[in-house]
């Protein structure tokens, strides 16, 4: 009997030793991936941007073309994110609160833009609204420009970011069910009161999380916007496109300076994301305790 326990404890020891080794290896490889793959690119952007000191760095950022690119990026984000926010709430509402035929098809369609190449997203709008497109002649007659102008940039940005808010809200609202809303209705609340006072507080953090992800993508979108923008400096150039132009002109320091501005925005977005995520987890934890 004792030999059995001995061999059992020996194999348990061996397993534990193996576990410790595996654990160390995994932690080290996690660190390696983090440093080599995530930190190093950040480092290179900042170091290339500051190669010639702060003077050239700020010079590149405050140059008029860069400022107008920043304004255009913020404007495109400012229009497309609210559009997708309203869409996301409406889509999540009908998917999570009701049962109807074709629901899984609808969810697939909402996710569709994720599996379409951004370049194709730009292409389809050129085919519709470009000079040779379906509506091209009509638009020209009425002197409306969509492609190579702000509306095209907004359309392309909206297309690639359609799913973000809806995707975050659907699982959250399905989990929460319909009881609280039903109670509000039975107590005499009308539709809007129910939405503002019951639903919105419940989905607030998930909504913020979705908006943050949507903003990140909208701000950095390159392929789709590149097709529809026409790259007119100072007019239809967004920040990521401005980086490309500077880079292709071998103006690397300026390209990396503008890139580090985008990098800072990305890090800020990550912080916001982390914050809203921790609020969601706290809400879930407190819901679990009840």
């Amino acid at each position: 009997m004792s030999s059995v326990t001995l061999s059992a404890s020996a194999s348990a020891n061996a397993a534990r030793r193996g576990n410790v080794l595996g654990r160390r290896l995994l932690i080290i490889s996690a660190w390696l991936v983090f440093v080599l793959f995530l930190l190093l690119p950040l480092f290179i952007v900042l170091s290339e941007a500051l190669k010639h000191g702060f003077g050239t760095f700020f010079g590149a950022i405050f140059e008029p073309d860069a400022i107008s690119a920043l304004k255009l990026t913020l404007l495109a984000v400012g229009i497309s994110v609210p559009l997708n926010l309203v869409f996301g709430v409406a889509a999540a509402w009908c998917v999570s609160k009701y049962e109807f035929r074709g629901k899984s098809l609808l969810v697939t369609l909402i996710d569709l833009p994720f599996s379409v190449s951004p370049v194709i997203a730009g292409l389809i709008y050129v085919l519709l609204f470009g000079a040779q497109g379906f509506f091209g002649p009509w638009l020209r007659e009425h002197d409306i420009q969509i492609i190579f102008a702000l509306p095209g940039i907004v359309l392309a940005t909206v297309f690639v970011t359609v799913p973000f808010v809806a995707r975050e809200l659907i699982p959250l609202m399905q989990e929460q069910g319909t009881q609280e809303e039903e109670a509000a209705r039975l107590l005499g609340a009308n539709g809007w009161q129910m939405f503002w006072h019951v639903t919105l507080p419940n989905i607030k953090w998930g909504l913020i999380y979705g908006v943050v992800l949507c903003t990140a993508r909208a701000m950095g979108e390159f392929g789709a916007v590149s097709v529809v923008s026409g790259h007119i400096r100072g007019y239809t150039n967004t920040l990521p496109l401005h980086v490309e132009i500077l880079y292709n002109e071998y103006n690397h320091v300026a390209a990396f300076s503008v890139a580090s501005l985008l990098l800072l925005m990305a890090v800020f977005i990550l912080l916001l994301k982390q914050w809203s995520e921790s609020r969601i987890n706290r809400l879930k934890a407190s819901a679990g305790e009840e």
Partner: protein
Amino acid sequence: MSRRTSPVIPGFGLTLGYTLVYLSLLVLIPLGAMFVHAAQLTWAEFWAIISAPRVLAALKLSFATAFAAAVINGIIGTLLAWALVRYSFPGRKVIEAMIDLPFALPTAVAGIALTALYAPSGLVGQFATDLGFKIAYTPIGITLALTFVTLPFVVRTIQPVLADIPREVEEAAACLGAKPLQVFRHVLLPALLPAWLTGFSLAFARGVGEYGSVIFIAGNMPMKTEILPLLIMVKLDQYDYTGATAIGVLMLVVSFILLLLINLLQRQIAKS
């Protein structure tokens, strides 16, 4: 279409209607327009465009590099998710927060940063040069860029599943005499595989269509390092809308067939 379960809650017609109109106007009709445009071609013309050597080379390159990147992420992502879920170690929270960096960072920024690192004279690329090979301006560079931009997919889909598997299950299997590999094969793999495949297919789909991060590091040599989305761009710059449309249709059809296959595989696994 209206079999609602909670007739008390208002807004079904409004929200469904809005969702359908919005999706139709912005996504479905424009995508449909591309297929209508492509339908103006005869089969022979369509075939002539997509069977051009340059298109086939780009097609192979795009799908091969996206597949390779998804496989690499399938491995790295599983290891990362494992370390983040199962162990607490110094810096875990920072790594956890930074995993999503590739999603937050504009792809053009990622593209020029990776090029600066892996170009033959770059910080990392010079070591490769010493060893006698090139990373940037080759398919290896493209795979690297795709691996970077799709890194979070597998980690993020596996993490919650891994967190939900109670450790006791593995310990019980180990106590019953299962070796670590057996535990992995019979306990963890069946539980993780559906999520893993979801992460894999998300990464793959994104990789096939990715443009911004790739064009800087690819070198964009026709027949060698030219990806399919770039070829669409090239055709558009030449005002060859028909050519661009045909390639776009080809790309969508091939990706949907592949995603459908992955989906079927997933259902098969869920059944067994």
